């Protein structure tokens, strides 16, 4: 990158970008960047992201990582970046759970609401604030604590095949938060962010940066909501979690977008020595949802639990890629991803346990189970191991199957109709993931969303 671009002058940023097909988005981006005040640090990261995006070829389906989700049809320039100009949405038009979170303090340490990337609401328990907890928009932190942000923002080790979208995400960043928990601070209730999207034909790019210092403990929830959209919108999302020695972070992403949304989520957790990450992904909405979830087990004795559930209907396509990267010895990771599919929906799971050379006494598990509820639904599962140490315990398991006839008959023999029996079996299938989801309110909303999907089939 040229020296000049480091000064924060936003006027020259995209003019040197290569022409090939990127002109339109370059112009759009330039006008977007000019339209808002932005701290130097963010502008620099945005430019670096843009450069990565431009310099990286769009992955084709020849790449193993993108075999089942065709990126070549993705045209970033066809979406309009969200802006915060224009009228704000009256609060009463926001969805019920969002309003409820804005109006009630109950069982939440903090709440953030963004509407089309714009900050609508932000609150953090003042007692936590006094202890040094930060829950703030990235731009605010970039102004006041650039040193802190610089240490973590876009610092995760992103795989080559993820670079293209990661760069685009950085370039188009339209709102993110920084959650910082100082050493030893225990945040009892979840910190809860809602991202509501209703701008037709837009691209929104959000970032969650979570840092828990040594021995800190925090639970963080990100929810994505939208109505059905007529003109397709694109949602890009980056998550970076840094758990220092002995920290415990629980992170839950719940994606319940309506129709007409493509969602790409790239999540990186970096766990230090004896640090624990409990990660959850719930995917119910959007037409296409792709999640790249990477757990970097960097410290000895780190623990990572990775759980996910999805329920696809109509022609939804969900694609989950995971990496359990054991970089240090004696770390433990346990992945359980469960998906149910009905109608013509499809899903992909591609998971890798990678044990670095020297990461002895690694203990890693990976399980993907798929339940097909319709003859037209399909699931692909590709679990994988790549082991560079000799004293490890690793296992993986995967299955794609239909409702178990023995269980079905048993339930029906007690008077349940086939439909009711299947409903119970779907919930039973999800229960081992559901029961571990933090936060009773969000758990029961996930249940009722699944219920709605079951009833609609």
């Amino acid at each position, binding site marked *: 990158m040229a020296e000049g671009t480091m000064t924060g002058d936003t006027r020259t940023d995209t003019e040197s970008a290569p022409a090939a097909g990127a002109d339109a988005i370059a112009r759009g981006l330039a006008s977007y960047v000019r339209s808002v005040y932005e701290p130097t640090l963010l502008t620099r990261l945005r430019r670096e992201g843009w450069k990565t995006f431009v310099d990286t070829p769009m992955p084709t389906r020849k790449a193993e990582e993108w075999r089942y989700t065709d990126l070549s049809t993705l045209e970033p320039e066809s979406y309009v970046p969200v802006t915060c100009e224009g009228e704000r949405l009256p609060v009463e038009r926001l969805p019920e759970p969002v309003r409820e979170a804005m109006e009630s303090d109950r069982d939440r340490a903090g709440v953030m609401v963004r509407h089309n990337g714009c900050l609508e609401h932000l609150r953090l328990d003042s007692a936590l604030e006094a202890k040094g907890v930060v829950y703030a928009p990235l731009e605010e932190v970039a102004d006041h604590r650039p040193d802190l942000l610089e240490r973590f923002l876009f610092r995760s080790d992103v795989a080559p095949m993820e670079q293209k979208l990661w760069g685009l995400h950085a370039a188009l960043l339209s709102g993110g938060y920084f959650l910082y928990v100082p050493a030893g601070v225990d945040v009892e209730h979840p910190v809860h962010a809602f991202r509501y999207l209703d701008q037709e034909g837009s691209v929104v790019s959000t970032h969650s940066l979570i840092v828990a210092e040594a021995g800190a403990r925090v639970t963080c929830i990100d929810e994505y909501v939208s109505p059905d959209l007529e003109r397709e919108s694109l949602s890009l999302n980056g998550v970076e979690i840094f758990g220092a020695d002995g920290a415990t972070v629980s992170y839950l992403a719940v994606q319940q977008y309506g129709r007409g949304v493509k969602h790409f989520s790239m999540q990186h957790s970096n766990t230090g020595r004896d640090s624990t990450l409990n990660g959850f992904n719930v995917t119910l909405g959007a037409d296409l949802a792709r999640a790249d979830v990477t757990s970097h087990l960097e410290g000895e004795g780190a623990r990572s639990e990775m759980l996910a559930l999805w329920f696809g209907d109509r022609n939804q396509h969900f694609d989950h890629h995971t990496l359990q990267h054991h970089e240090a010895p004696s770390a433990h990771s346990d992945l359980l991803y469960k998906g149910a599919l009905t109608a013509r929906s499809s899903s992909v799971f591609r998971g890798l346990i990678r044990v670095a050379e020297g990461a002895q006494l690694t203990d890693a598990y990976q399980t993907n189970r798929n339940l097909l509820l319709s003859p037209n639904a399909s699931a692909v599962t590709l679990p994988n191991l790549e082991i560079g140490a000799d004293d490890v315990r690793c296992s993986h398991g995967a299955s794609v199957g239909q409702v178990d006839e023995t*269980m079905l008959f048993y339930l029906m023999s007690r008077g349940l109709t086939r439909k009711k029996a299947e409903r119970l079996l779907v919930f039973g299938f999800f229960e081992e993931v559901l029961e571990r989801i933090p936060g009773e309110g969000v758990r029961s909303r996930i249940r009722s969303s699944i219920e709605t999907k079951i009833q609609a089939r």
Partner: protein
Amino acid sequence: MAEHLLEIRNLHARVEGEVTDILRGVDLAIRHGEMHALMGPNGSGKSTLAKAIAGHPGYEVTSGEVLLDGENVLEMEPDERSRAGLFLAFQYPAEIPGVSISNFLRTAMSARLAEGEEMDIFAFQKRLMEKLEMLKVDPSFAARYVNDGFSGGEKKRNEILQLAMLEPRMAVMDETDSGLDIDALRIVSEGVNTIRETHDSMGVLLITHYKRILNYLRPDYVHVMLKGQIAHSGGPELADRLEEMGYDWLHEPEAETAAV
């Protein structure tokens, strides 16, 4: 009300996809409130009969009738048979991870109400606690997933719990005694007796391999099944004779008629 609660007429059935019948003309009639024991050696067709009555999809009825209070159940789906009042206590109950016993039972009881109605939660809890107590089971049992990781005895207790909760008109108990130790056998049997006391019109078809359970449950009639047919029927004393002499004497067609 038909004269017989359960009437089986000339029933032929086989494993789905096979060419030979396992049941080769079974005739059996049970009146309201009666308990019948069905005994017989392994492979005689006892469990096939239980599954055919319940509508197991792995079995095909090739001819004959099964009437519940005069109504042909063979045309019904398994769930319709259940709601009509049939209950099968399974020999090998399915394990259903993620579904709690209480959720399952409440759904099953709600299935007997009008569409959209749900069993009242308080009435349900009260009844559930009573039945758990009757079976000498800790209340935490109801929160466990259906049969998931249960011992043989726990599975059978769970079957009887369901029987007690659903109070069917006709219960078919398929080797409920197998795999039970003597204490569990006594508790399960006492449970069945208690259900019969309060729900005295219920018919029971008790399929068993051993006479042991008949020390606790007194059937009105005992039938012996051989090679897919009821080869012999009698009163409770027949069970004693089987205990003494085994099944071999019944193989002689002469003895079959002479013994009555």
